[in-house]
């Protein structure tokens, strides 16, 4: 496995056409999301009933929704909100899951057994079920959706981190580090984590795109982002009532989700192929989280 600096790594990655598509797509969506934080073509909170369900035009690129709001602006804000939830959920999963996984790999004994049990346990509670519990107690909101998705991300990252770490602990340079007096924690930080980092980065992109899908699902059934905020899933929920008359209401946000997820997945795949073609062996073959 060659160690290169980031520029040559990027150059090698860009050689894959699918990676190029992924980078462009992801960058485009990220740009839309960031821009929406400061500006959208039309404000999303102004209702314009006479203009509802307008089709594509020069003034409204993607038409208007059932309240007359500009679809394109809604899309931008929707992407930003969906991304926010997915990003933070991924961060929750990574920040708790990765240390758990690394500790499990280095501890053996009862600590490892406890962490593994805990992992298995959370796997039985997909994001939806956690969301149900949380919303029953605290009411639906984007934050609660984020927490629910984040909870399920924890065992995913823990499992990947542990899987990658386990195969490293048998290597001789870890023994050498122990002989140099390094503690398990120091070895985790200095040797193990940097060597599983590429595995984790790839997993992060997977969890991010899964998070967008999960947020869409939760918002669609009303357990996620609440109006007047908007998210891609919420747009689909609102579109359902008018679906038979005005199908474009649902097609546009849905298409946006599909394109975004594909871009991110291609990005992740390209990263995996570049960083280490053998990556799929070290962690779990985890396409779905």
């Amino acid at each position, binding site marked *: 496995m060659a160690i290169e600096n980031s520029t040559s790594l990027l150059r090698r990655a860009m050689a894959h056409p699918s990676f190029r598509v992924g980078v462009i797509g992801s960058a485009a969506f990220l740009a839309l999301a960031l821009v929406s934080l400061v500006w959208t073509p039309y404000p999303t909170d102004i209702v314009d009933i006479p203009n509802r369900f307008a089709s594509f035009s020069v003034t409204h690129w993607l038409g208007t929704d059932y309240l007359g709001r500009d679809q394109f602006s809604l899309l931008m804000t929707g992407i930003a909100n969906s991304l926010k939830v997915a990003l933070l959920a991924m961060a929750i999963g990574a920040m708790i899951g990765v240390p758990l996984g690394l500790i499990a790999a280095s501890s053996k004994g009862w600590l490892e057994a406890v962490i593994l049990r805990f992992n298995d346990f959370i796997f039985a509670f997909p994001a939806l079920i956690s969301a149900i519990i949380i919303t029953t107690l605290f009411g639906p909101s984007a934050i609660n959706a984020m927490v629910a998705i984040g909870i399920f991300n924890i065992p995913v990252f823990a499992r990947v981190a542990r899987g990658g770490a386990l195969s490293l602990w048998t290597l001789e340079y870890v023994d050498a580090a122990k002989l*140099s007096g390094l503690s398990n924690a120091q070895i985790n930080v200095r040797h193990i984590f940097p060597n599983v980092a590429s595995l984790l980065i790839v997993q992060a992109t997977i969890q991010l795109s899964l998070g967008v899908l999960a947020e869409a699902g939760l918002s669609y059934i009303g357990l996620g982002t609440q109006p007047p905020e908007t998210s891609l899933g919420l747009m689909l929920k609102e579109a359902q009532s008018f679906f038979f008359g005005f199908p474009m209401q649902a097609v546009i946000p849905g298409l946006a989700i599909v394109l975004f997820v594909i871009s991110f997945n291609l990005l992740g795949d390209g990263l995996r192929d570049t960083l280490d073609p053998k990556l799929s062996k070290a962690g779990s073959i985890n396409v779905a989280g």
Partner: protein
Amino acid sequence: MLLVKVEDLRISFGARQVVNGISLNIDLGQRVGVVGESGSGKSLTALSIIGLLPDAATQTGTVSISVHNSSQYVQVSSANVPDSAINLRGEHIGMVFQEPMTSLNPLMRIGDQIREAIVLHIRAADVDERVAMLIAEVELPASVEKRFPHELSGGQRQRIGLAIALAAEPELLIADEPTSALDMITQRQVIDLIRSVCNKRQMALLFISHDLGAVAALCEKIYVLEKGNLVEEGKAADLLAAPQQLYTKKLIAAAKPIRRREIGRQVGKPLLKVEGISRKFKLPSRLFAPKQYVQALGDISFEIGEAECVGLVGPSGCGKTTLSRIIAGLQISQTGSLDFDGHKYGRTFDSMPKEARRELAMVFQDPFGSFDPRLDMAKSMFEPLNLLPSLNAKEQLERVHQAVERVGLDTDMLGRHPHAFSGGQRQRLAIARALVLRPKLVVLDEPVSALDVSIRGEVLQLLSELRENYGIAYLFVSHDLDVVHAVADRVLVMDKGHIVEQGHVDEVFNNPQAQITKQLLAARLSM
């Protein structure tokens, strides 16, 4: 008459040519050896004969086989081309591969895997008897038939690989490094088995190996390969007695046991005292069954003096690696005690105080795993200095530079990453890392086993020099008796977790008392 004809074989991967025009012949019933170091193209040549080259390889030149003792030669096609009328693989050519641990389907019973090899080519009513006969022929008990591969040892799996290759009664057996992954005694047994099987069936043999001794023991004719080129060929006896080419001479010299270098240093007072240590491991057991243990080490006691080199030998599974790890402080002992330079340790983790840790270093077998691939060499070298926080930055740098120079390498190499170095260089750097703290004792676990034969001599030479100049004591663990003979003063022979014999290395080797010592000595393949 001629069985296999290889003419001007060239194999490339894309633009890179790895086999450059090799021609060789195998007569009916003849045993031919192909010898060369890693990268010589010997395995690829063997694979092209059976038609199993990897997809990415392109081949030119012809490989033809005579079928049914006729003068008609069939050209061997690759695995991707649809089969010709005659299926050569299995029926006329059988092959045994190098890695016994992964060559068998882990989900299928042994008997079924052998059965498949028979049924593909022979329509017979007595398939079950044939399977039983094959298992007996490779000297395994009949109960093996119902087992799964993971229940067998490496040597047993290799014998099954042989049984599978023989199943359809081929005229040619190709064996690609069949014994490299096995320990010495098993190696000897498998080679003897191959010889007797070839004799009995009057089968031709193509034997690929980097081990000139093994090739010489088995083959009548030898081809020598270097970097894809055929360097020399000839009858085994002639070639070994009077090699013509420089490379052949080099190989022969490297295969000879390395001469012992007597050093001018006296052995000092006892530095390491090991008393009564033992270790057992729990085996996974079935529910409700009584717990089972394997005694990896039992009641081990010995001493190592200052500047003394003690060799530790034994068959695989004898416990020598476990012992070396306990001494290094990586594992604990369940009984007894260890005393290193006045410090007692060994019964609990982290029982070794810093002062003791500084004086004890270890060199491992695998040069590829010895260094973190993400760190440059300098960072890896600085790591042991974690135990000497009192040194300032300048002093630390000096220590590292000194260590690197002592092993004969250049200090400006330190900025590079491990993958930039060869196996031999990495092992030298591993030794340098061990020297940074100027230890009194270095534990070496098979330090040269993974290196090419021609490099081994240099590294052993280096180790002897270091001991002479700096008075370092060694615990030298190895399965290779010749290597141990070249460096050690005393030797301990282990078997099944116990020390069965110890003494000065010449005495033990010339006058072995224990059964296992005699077996190990006899297993050496000399030329």
